């Protein structure tokens, strides 16, 4: 039981990192980014490449992932999303565009990095024991870095000018535009930050989960669950959703047979959203 709870907690922290970028892009653009999982995977591969193949320090690898993904995110917005949002008759188009980009990114990753599972073995080893539960040191490291990243992100959004502008856009795009803010630029910046967060998640989690080119969709779906559970577009919601999913998954695997856990999660999510569509932290609107 203790092990299940601890698993849930650790899982939750990792999941939170996956969900943050997704919720940011949703808040800014109203896009459910189907390519999120593929961005995560790309982040993992960049770290693998820089750390394992080029042999540079891990910190450099993480930074490389963040930078590469920020650029990819900015380009996604500038080259694709902006055009489609301007010209499409239906706003849902951007959701489908994201699904198309997911496929594109996935095939590029497969061609570029190959089909093999890739992992990064950190030199952090050892296992801590809490009561009768085990927590590996590598996970503690990732947990700490993940939490640090979450805190930094929240501070950035609250206390810097770009952060405040982004929050204003999330709240009311049109009004913010009227105040003379360069919406196009900031959308790009928002997308870049969202992707960079996905890249950071991939970069850190490649050390414990490893990555392969085809796992993106599964990651996206998990991140969707967390974001919807917590309340779409709300940072605190994504974090809460992540911990709830982590706990339910850990407890489910401990007490239910096999894939019934995810059956329960999906059915539960449907029922939950029917009752409370705005998620745990979402404010009811309209």
């Amino acid at each position: 039981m203790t092990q299940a709870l601890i698993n849930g907690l650790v899982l939750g922290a990792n999941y939170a990192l996956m969900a943050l970028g997704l919720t940011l892009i949703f808040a800014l653009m109203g896009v459910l980014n189907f390519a999120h999982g593929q961005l995560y995977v790309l982040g993992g591969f960049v770290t693998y490449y820089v750390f394992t193949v080029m042999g540079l320090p891990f910190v450099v690898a993480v930074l490389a992932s963040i930078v590469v993904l920020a650029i990819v995110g900015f380009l996604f917005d500038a080259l694709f999303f902006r055009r489609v949002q301007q010209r499409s008759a239906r706003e849902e188009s951007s959701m489908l565009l994201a699904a198309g980009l997911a496929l594109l990114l996935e095939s590029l990753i497969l061609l570029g990095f190959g089909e093999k599972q890739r992992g990064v073995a950190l030199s952090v080893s050892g296992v801590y024991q809490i009561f009768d539960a085990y927590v590996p040191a590598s996970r503690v490291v990732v947990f700490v870095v993940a939490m640090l990243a979450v805190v930094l992100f929240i501070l950035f959004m609250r206390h810097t000018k770009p952060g405040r502008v982004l929050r204003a856009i999330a709240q009311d795009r049109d009004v913010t535009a009227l105040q003379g803010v360069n919406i196009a630029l900031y959308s790009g910046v928002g997308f870049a930050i969202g992707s960079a967060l996905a890249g950071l998640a991939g970069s850190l989690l490649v050390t414990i989960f490893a990555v392969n080119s085809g796992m993106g969709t599964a990651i996206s779906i998990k991140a969707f669950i967390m974001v919807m559970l917590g309340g779409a577009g709300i940072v605190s919601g994504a974090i809460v959703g992540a911990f709830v999913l982590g706990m339910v998954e850990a407890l489910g695997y401990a007490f239910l047979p096999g894939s019934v856990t995810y059956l329960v999660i999906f059915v539960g999510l449907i029922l939950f959203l029917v009752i409370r569509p705005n998620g745990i932290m979402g404010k009811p609107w309209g």
Partner: protein
Amino acid sequence: MIRSNQVWAFLILALVYIVGVPFIVESRYILGILASAAGLSIIALGAWLTLAIGRVNLGQGAFALVGGYVVAIATTRWGVSFWLAIVVAGFISAAVGVVLGLGILRLRGVYFAMITLSFTEAVRLALLNGGEFTGGAGGISRIPVPGELSLLGVTIIPAFNSVNTHVASFVLSGVLLALAVLLCWRISACRIGGVFVSMQQSEELAQSVGVNITHLRIVAFGIGSFLGGIGGGYFAAAQQSVYPGGFGVPDSVSLVLYCFLGGIGYVAGPVVGTFLLFLGFQFLQDFQQYQMLAYSLLMVALMIWLPNGVLSLSEAGWIRRYRSQHGQAGAHHAG
């Protein structure tokens, strides 16, 4: 208003396709993928109907699974004729859709998309864990090909194994697709279609002039689910097997993508999108390991250049000019 000459044109086109293609095309492979594209188009038309009321429906895969399993279980376990089973499959899927819709249709946007996506996963996992009844992970195989359908001793449709099965499957898929298109065409051209457009643009406004939006949303979603079930039932018989993974989230997303890329403003949109992309993927086979890359590039490029679908080309300047010269402009309003 559908003009009767348009209906005749469609029927002739459908007949030429259904009868003519098997004469010209000898390759079983080409017939097979055309039949698959037609089957997928039926399911995509269902997704299109929910898009018509402003809902991105990522649950079509689930309805296709339900339809497929109904046909599989009815024909293999209870010896029911395929022809009865596929109709039952459509109605059971529709019933599932209505029950689900009662709960979720007041949601919109990503909320609806996400909940239907969850539904696709939930159905897959339920079938996976369904034990003996659904055959678990192994699904149900050895589904018989459709048998003879006769009325008062007169054979209306011969048993598929007594004729060329490939051609028979192709014809079946073509006929079902033609019927599905007629259904959706009629809906979108009559007053109900106009009301659907109203609901898609503003449910509040539609409600204010007395439209029972709850009722009509259920109707649209129910018919969409029905088409999903029919399509799934078709595939069960054509492939002679069903598996929990037969339709999943990627399929559900693809089906909606087909609608968008074909053009959701047009009844033919889902059909054009499905044929273009599904066949396109097959024909890109020659790119070998770059097949997926080429396919996704094609898809993204289409979305960038024609964000309102391939059929929006028909509204391009030169066609419009031609039309206005020939006095057809503005003749599209519903009614």
